């Protein structure tokens, strides 16, 4: 009997919270109707395995929205950014997306590879422009992903840029030796073929490859056989935690090589995790690091009130700037819809996101935002800018 009441009370509590949630939703809709504004959805990992980088990225996107709104919005319209957490889970990403699609949202700031890929077809069907922080090369081919955009060079291009830079600065007469360490995971595998092809083309000798899991706590098993082959360069294709493990173990067993990673493989956190073991490692990035001497940094410093942020924050900011520019171009031509933003973005030529990232251009047949990559080297525990390496926009690299 008592239990019965308890259960009934629980049911009432759940129902009332549900009702509350439902009311909350309604209120928001009223507001949206009242003021003239553009609603943009956010499907970003705020919890789950990738949240350590997802949160700063989302903060950057939010800062971008605040910045654009402070400038008077886009074509007189304020941006209403509705940020939701997908917890790196496809099903949750899918339900959030369905909610957005029903609200007739025109654009989404997305995030991880799994959710972005799972929504690729739906976004194309519903004509919603989808920006992601998953830089898989196949998302740049409008034939498979017509409504997908991002603002950084893709993973394959990032790696190619590093290889080109290393080759240009190679002084010895022998071939440089390259080894690859990457997780057996879609994210880790996606640039591997491109790296192998380009390395062969540039005259690298591939001396070894091994899998290091994203959640690895030890990499000596993979590094010991590599040590004997004496690679000059080692690609770490995981995320920051696995890179930290590799670098620390490499130092422990005395493996000396130049390590390089993509955008998610090293950031400000790597220095905290790996200490001096990460000294000399290269990090390929697509946005300035906090405090770097570029025109837009003043705005970032103001927005963050001088509280240092990760480079992912800056990239999130840039992603929003580019999306905003797309909306502005679309508004200049007519009504703002997902399709008109897409069409407008495809006319974008050399848009400069305040120097915070390489210039962005899109073509109707080619959604590669840029072929330029920022190379950073960790010197004295700081990401230090080395150079901007720009590749040719080769047609055969599109989507690969």
């Amino acid at each position: 009997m008592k239990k019965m009441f308890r259960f009934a009370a629980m049911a009432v509590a759940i129902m009332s919270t549900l009702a509350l949630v439902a009311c909350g939703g309604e209120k928001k809709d009223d507001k949206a109707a009242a003021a003239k504004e553009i609603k943009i959805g956010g499907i970003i990992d705020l919890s789950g395995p990738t949240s350590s980088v997802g949160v700063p990225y989302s903060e950057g996107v939010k800062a971008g929205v605040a910045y654009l709104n402070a400038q008077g919005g886009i074509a007189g319209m304020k941006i209403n950014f509705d940020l939701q957490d997908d917890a790196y889970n496809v099903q949750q990403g899918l339900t959030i997306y369905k909610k957005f699609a029903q609200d007739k949202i025109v654009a989404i700031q997305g995030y991880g590879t799994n959710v972005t890929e799972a929504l690729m077809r739906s976004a194309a069907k519903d004509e919603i422009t989808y920006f992601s922080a998953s830089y898989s090369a196949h998302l740049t081919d409008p034939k498979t992903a017509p409504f997908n955009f991002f603002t950084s060079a893709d993973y394959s291009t990032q790696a190619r840029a590093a290889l080109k830079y290393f080759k240009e600065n190679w002084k010895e007469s022998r071939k440089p030796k390259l080894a690859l360490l990457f997780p057996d995971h879609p994210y880790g595998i996606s640039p591997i073929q491109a790296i192998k092809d380009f390395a062969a083309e540039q005259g690298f000798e591939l001396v070894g490859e091994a899998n290091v899991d994203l959640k690895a706590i030890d990499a000596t098993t993979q590094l010991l056989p590599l040590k004997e082959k004496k690679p000059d360069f080692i690609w770490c294709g995981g995320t920051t935690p696995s890179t930290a493990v590799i670098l620390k173990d490499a130092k422990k067993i005395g493996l000396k090589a130049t390590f390089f990673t993509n955008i998610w493989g090293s950031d400000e956190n790597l220095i905290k995790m790996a200490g001096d073991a990460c000294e000399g490692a290269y990090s390929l990035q697509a946005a300035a690091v906090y405090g770097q001497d570029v025109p837009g940094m003043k705005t970032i410093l103001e927005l963050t009130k001088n509280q240092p942020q990760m480079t992912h924050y800056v990239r999130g900011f840039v992603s929003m700037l580019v999306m905003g520019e797309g909306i502005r171009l679309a508004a200049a031509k007519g009504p703002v819809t997902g399709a008109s933003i897409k069409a407008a973005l495809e006319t974008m030529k050399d848009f400069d996101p305040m120097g915070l990232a390489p210039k962005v251009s899109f073509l109707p047949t080619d959604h590669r935002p840029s072929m330029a990559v920022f190379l950073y080297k960790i010197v004295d525990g700081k990401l230090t800018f080395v150079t901007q390496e720009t590749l040719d926009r080769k047609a055969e690299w599109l989507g690969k």
Partner: protein
Amino acid sequence: MRGKCGLFFESYRAEAAVFQSGFQKTCLGLFVAALLLSPWVLDSYFVSMLNLICIAVIGAVSLNLLTGVCGQISLGHGAFLGVGAYAAAQATMHGVPFLAALLLGGFAAALAGMVFGVPSLRLKGIYLAIATLAAQLILEYVFLHWESATGGSRGLSVDAPNILGFAFNNERRMFYLLFSIAALSLLMVTNVMRTRHGRAFVSIRDFYLSAEIAGVNLFAYKLAAFGLSSFLAGVAGGLWAHYTLFLSAEQFNIGLSISYLAMIIIGGLGSVTGSVMGAVFMTLLPEVLNGLSGAISDVLPNISQHINALREGVFGLVLILFLIFEPEGLANRWRLIKAYWKLYPFAH
């Protein structure tokens, strides 16, 4: 008010009936009718939730047949779903009609399930769990590396289902397709449980030695349970593929297998109604938590980050609370509620 103070059966046939009273039939009929009408009333977000629930129901009831009814634990259910998804997607891509492709997906998954079910003859309990976990890991590897079939790390694009020229390309249409297949699966499992074969499954679960002495061929029936369960899982996978329109290896990871296990534990092991309740609960819980954390962060914006982190903890906490306070699942709670109201107001 005219009625009996209980259900009294005069034949075994009546006792084994799926619907035992007219009242039950009426209620269920009204419920199904309400569900069938709901896509015209609800907006597409809620319909999409119903769609996800339908897919989860098929997956959950199939695992319940294996784990709840036959007593064979499986940590590879998510991977079997994946086998069905990839097989059905490949079939439709090669021009096989949707329903045939769905069946093909089911058979492919059944085959995989039976292969990985072979160790069940020798292994029980935690050992079988590890063996099926191995199936999960092996199949995940296959999904990622068999590029010609699965698209490897690039994934596989799938088209919306199309039956005789009718495209199921929006939520409402999808709902009717998914709902009817989910209803068919529930009917199928309910009926399997009523047959001699179903009773053989139960006898294996309750005590394998007695079952064998009573003449149940353990190996054949365990394999049959794996096959049948994986078949339905494959169908669920095929539907998932054609609903989300994109497949990647990450979708069928160990997390999916665990979430199906959680569904049947929360819902009630060995109960068809329980599978449905568990599927509904597990699909809606993240949404409710999402809504709650959204509502809280509207009021207290400063703590929204902590709320997000907390949400994962709450999810785990809910599971633990269920195991402690509702060890027999939601289905049992539902039975108790019904019993309470049946005798109202003269409950003891």
